[in-house]
């Protein structure tokens, strides 16, 4: 699988392959520029899709970003396909305000370890199954329940 993929430089191939593989789980795809692919999935499917890209496409986990939106925190997994393929697959998922939890990938792939800690402390998203949810960037005496990267954060302590 990987050998075949390694030479594959056409972004449409990846879009089709993922759609084929996951079917209904893919809610939406976008392809605004040649090298940028955005895939929207439900939060329960996100780890599966990301791991698929990581292992099957030899995708490098560039980073994950959290974005605070009115509905909740969007998490984007930016997966870079190297070896001259020049493609970024961004798996996007929404963690709704009612249930700030998502399954951890860091427990399986160490590349996701730190960024999940960071998103946890800055956005308050809980990564289920992550072994080590200590503070990464903030001070040890940082008050609980204050998530500075949320839009409604006020420094009142």
């Amino acid at each position, binding site marked *: 699988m990987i050998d075949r993929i390694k030479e594959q430089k056409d972004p449409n191939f990846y879009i089709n392959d993922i759609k084929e593989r996951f079917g209904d789980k893919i809610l939406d795809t976008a392809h605004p520029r040649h090298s940028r692919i955005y895939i929207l999935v439900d939060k329960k499917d996100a780890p599966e899709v990301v791991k698929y890209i990581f292992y099957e496409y030899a995708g490098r986990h560039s980073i994950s970003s959290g974005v605070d939106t009115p509905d909740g925190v969007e998490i984007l997994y930016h997966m870079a396909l190297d070896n001259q393929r020049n493609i970024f697959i961004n798996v996007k998922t929404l963690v709704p305000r009612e249930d700030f939890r998502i399954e951890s990938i860091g427990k399986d792939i160490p590349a996701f370890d730190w960024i999940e800690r960071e998103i946890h402390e800055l956005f308050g998203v809980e990564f289920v199954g992550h072994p080590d949810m200590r503070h990464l960037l*903030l*001070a*040890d*005496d*940082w008050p609980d329940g204050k998530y*500075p990267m949320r839009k409604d*954060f006020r*420094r009142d302590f």
Partner: protein
Amino acid sequence: MSLKMKAFKKSIWVYHVACSPCNNCDIEILDLLTPRFDVERFGILLVGSPRHADALLVTGMVNRLSKPRLIEVYLQTPRPRVVFAFGSCGISTGIFAGGYNTEGPVDKVIHEVDPEGVIVYVPGCPPRPEAMIDAIVKALKAI
């Protein structure tokens, strides 16, 4: 006594404390040691422990995590001691003013524990090495 004072001026050992800098002042401080600027000419030496130091070169603003550590290092430095606040962030927290993790500029933090603490300001982003040497020489004159 004046002999000792002269000795002090001819031999300043510095310890580098990076609070929350952007690295730029730090590399420029290291630059001071290197062949082009060579501050050892003036007896300035970078040492490995604040116990041996006469001056602390503090760069960057102070954040919530590094504040207690800066204070700790400051208190571990034997008197007489001088603090050099390098760069805009060290002087005024610069671009990072008002951030939640910003605990204030260097002088404020030092004066919290030692109101008498001598602080020398070296502005610039980053200060040029020449400016740093100039600052150290001027500061020595002032002491």
